[in-house]
């Protein structure tokens, strides 16, 4: 929000990526449904189940609702 007076705020930089998806390994069944839904391909199948690469994740949330068991959630990105 711009302040009510003063010079106009500079244009906002590209929306900062404040939230990323994470997989709850306890809940995830490793079905892979979320992988083709991820635009940047940030979700990977590993020997220990599915993981989201927090660097590649854009926070678009397209993977969240379709997960059959609700194993994906958004968290605040660190650093």
């Amino acid at each position, binding site marked *: 929000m711009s302040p009510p007076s003063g010079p106009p705020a500079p244009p906002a930089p590209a929306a900062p990526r404040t939230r990323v998806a994470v997989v709850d390994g306890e809940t995830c*069944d490793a*079905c*892979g*449904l*979320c*992988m*083709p*839904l*991820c*635009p940047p*391909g940030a979700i990977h*199948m590993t020997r220990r189940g599915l993981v989201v690469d927090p660097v590649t994740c854009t926070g678009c949330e*397209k993977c969240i*609702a*379709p*997960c*059959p*068991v*609700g194993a994906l959630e958004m968290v605040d990105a660190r650093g």
Partner: protein
Amino acid sequence: MRAVDVLVVGGGPAGCVAAWEAAAAGAHGVLLIERDRAIGAPVRCAEGVGGAGLREFLDPDGAPWVSRRIVRVILVAPDDTEVRLAESDVGYILDRTRFEPALAERASAAGAAIRIGTEAVAMARSNGAGAPWHVTLRGPGGEETVAARVVIGADGVETMVGRWAGLETRVAARDMESCAQYVMGNIAFDPDAIYLHFGPSVAPGGYAWVFPKGEGIANVGIGVVTLRSDGRTVRRYLDDYVAHRFPGGTATGLTVGGVISGVTVRRTVTDGVILAGDAAHMINPLSGGGIINAMKAGRLAGRHAARALAEGNVTAPNLQPYHDEWMRLLGDAHLKYYKIKETVNRYDDDFFNRLAREVNHIPHGKRTLGRVMASALVHHPSLLPVAAQLFLQEFC
């Protein structure tokens, strides 16, 4: 470095048939790899197939991989009104833990090598368009890089082969059905019928199903496009459905997974790469049926791989006939079905309830799926020519 003519990634119906056909068509050095420790497991599927499509590949009579022969289809409206159709030869509910091994045995007998517990973890082209792909495999014996002249990506909805090869295999949320299924016992139903339960309150964008595995035991599942859902996960949709339909039932197994209900990807081939089955979105978008589609695609993929190898030219233009033949065989039909699905998705519960009561006035012997669809589509006459046989061809 080990070199193979054909590397098939994924030991499902598409991959097993692709390896079988490639070897049978004369390709030497066919290797099939499967990430899981068993071909056919874990099952992520309702396991139903149409009889005609199945018989093109294997004879189901007396086969140990058949759980149940199905002779009836029962459509169910949101208010539980049942419509028993008059079809008589519908199909089979498979035991996929036995079915895929039977396919893999055929591939092996034809000359293909099979490695389980082995996944592809990276893939890069060694040197220009005609050169082999170098695919890094990780298995029980560690990592190994294999040079493959043709890679058949039969690696399912999560395909990495497609991604590595630069083919567009991403899925829009509106085209992804989230599915959950229980194996349920202690429930009452007609063990010779499949039940398909429609309506946006039951399964928005999809349907719920009961596919018998035997008397009193069935796959009970549901597919939902969550963009259309009311915020529940599909697991919750399933629990609510089961509580309503089978309150005394016992769930003994849970399966979840995604069914892509879009249309075939625009490009299924590139230099030295063919995608087949779910990896290429080769699924009937109305029924969600993928098994027979995958097997037919695998057959084409194996044959075209062998042909291109024999011709000494595995570049994209020489693999393109695979894509074209698939589109003529089923891909173009899926485009039509997709349009029908978009129409069906506009109907509300009340429409399905009224339709069920209306078609139940048709005498049972004449109550075919075609008649029901004709009634359903009376306000959309342009859809009539493609109305029949949609689920019966293949319904898993």
